[in-house]
């Protein structure tokens, strides 16, 4: 049964196909799976269906690492991976969303929007943002508690101290750089001095901070000539602030993945995840209202540009990933509680 002789070319083909699977899967199943592929090739040298099947399964296995499928993961691992993915997707969503919201807030500092699409869009976006930050705070408290316990060497909720130290370092470094940089650059916020400040939906301080922390999300990247007129420190901040964001988000995702919360806590986080996906949908509906309503306002203050359409596309992808991850987290939490 199986193969007798295989050519180096067949071995290379099998090895190439195996690369579609994630490293962890290859470590566990790689050798035996390669043997199966070689036996298949000996029997049927060519089959595009087999190739497509292996590639599709490899991609599914990769999605599983993100908690987006239940392929080969325990219920607890599924819930944790899903929550970490949701955190990453929500962060990407917020980065683009806050850049949009800050842009609208700048316009509102100077004049009220007169079209209902922009007004209702901004109201939905503001409500979605408040809800997302509230949910983030509710989710962060037990995560921070478990992490502190792990770092102080108490309890079992956060895992070994060494595994947490790295991600915590990234969170602190990224968070500090982001807060310090955004606080510094918010002083040059273009909304400052507007005449409609008291009627704005978004507090000026929060809008200025959002603008400065998401300065890298800008259509100016497509206009190098205009970009050259920017002060050097602001250009440096635009280029380097994504690293701070990456450090903050990446560290947070790693912490969530490395924690070992109880089934009850996972169920709580899974409920927050579902609510976060709804808050993101609320925000996206508002952003869609504004972008497709195309209200421009006086002097084009509320004009939606190409960067906003691109942002909307990124946010849609992030919302789909977050909703998918929220379902995965709920499924994992239910299975862990013995109800799946």
């Amino acid at each position, binding site marked *: 049964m199986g193969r007798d002789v295989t050519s180096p070319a067949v071995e290379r083909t099998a090895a190439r196909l195996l690369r579609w699977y994630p490293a962890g899967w290859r470590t566990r199943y790689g050798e*035996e799976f390669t043997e*199966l592929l070689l*036996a298949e090739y000996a029997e049927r040298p060519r089959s595009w*269906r087999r190739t497509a099947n292996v590639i599709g399964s490899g991609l599914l296995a990769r999605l599983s690492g993100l908690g987006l499928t239940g*392929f080969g993961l325990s219920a607890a691992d599924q819930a944790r991976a899903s929550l970490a993915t949701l955190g990453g997707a929500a962060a990407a969503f917020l980065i683009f969303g806050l850049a949009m919201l800050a842009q609208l807030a700048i316009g509102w500092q100077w004049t009220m929007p007169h079209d209902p699409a922009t007004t209702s869009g901004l109201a939905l976006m503001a409500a979605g943002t408040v809800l997302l930050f509230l949910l983030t705070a509710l989710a962060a408290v037990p995560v921070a508690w478990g992490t502190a316990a792990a770092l102080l060497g108490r309890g079992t909720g956060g895992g070994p101290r060494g595994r947490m130290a790295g991600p915590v370092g990234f969170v602190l470094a990224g968070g500090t750089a982001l807060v310090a940089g955004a606080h510094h650059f918010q002083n040059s916020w273009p909304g400052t001095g507007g005449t409609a400040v008291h009627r704005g939906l978004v507090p000026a301080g929060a809008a200025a901070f959002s603008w400065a922390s998401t300065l890298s999300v800008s259509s100016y990247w497509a206009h190098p000539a205009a970009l050259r007129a920017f002060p050097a420190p602001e250009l440096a901040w635009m280029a380097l602030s994504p690293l701070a964001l990456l450090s903050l988000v990446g560290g947070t995702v790693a912490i969530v993945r490395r924690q070992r919360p109880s089934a009850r806590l996972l169920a709580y986080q899974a409920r927050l995840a579902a609510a976060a996906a709804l808050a993101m949908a609320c925000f996206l509906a508002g952003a869609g209202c504004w972008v497709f309503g195309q209200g421009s306002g006086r002097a084009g203050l509320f004009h939606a540009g190409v960067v906003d359409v691109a942002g909307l596309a990124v946010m849609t992808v992030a919302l789909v990933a977050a909703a998918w991850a929220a379902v995965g987290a709920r499924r994992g939490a239910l*299975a862990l509680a013995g109800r799946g």
Partner: protein
Amino acid sequence: MPGTPLGGFGRYAGPATLILSSLADGPKHGYALTKDIEQFAGLRLAPGTLYEALSRLEGQGLIEALESQDRRRPYQLTAAGAAALRAHLADQQRVAQVGLGRLARTWGAT
């Protein structure tokens, strides 16, 4: 059928049933499973589908891996796997009996 023992496997319930049925008479490695299933069920599980189902079954504790033999790793049914397979096949049998009975009453015996 979500309430059945393999209901949680979704679209892998079919491959999972075939794999568990194949392992019911003893341990087999991947290629042996493929050939055995092809022989008794008349369909060939593609390698990706086979290993997706194997990893799910292993994750659920319904099968377990044995020591590797010449880079091939045999799998065997666990007690939980045998119980799940028995319950699942009994469910399937009830469905088959109902369907066959209704066919016989309405369309006559063949």
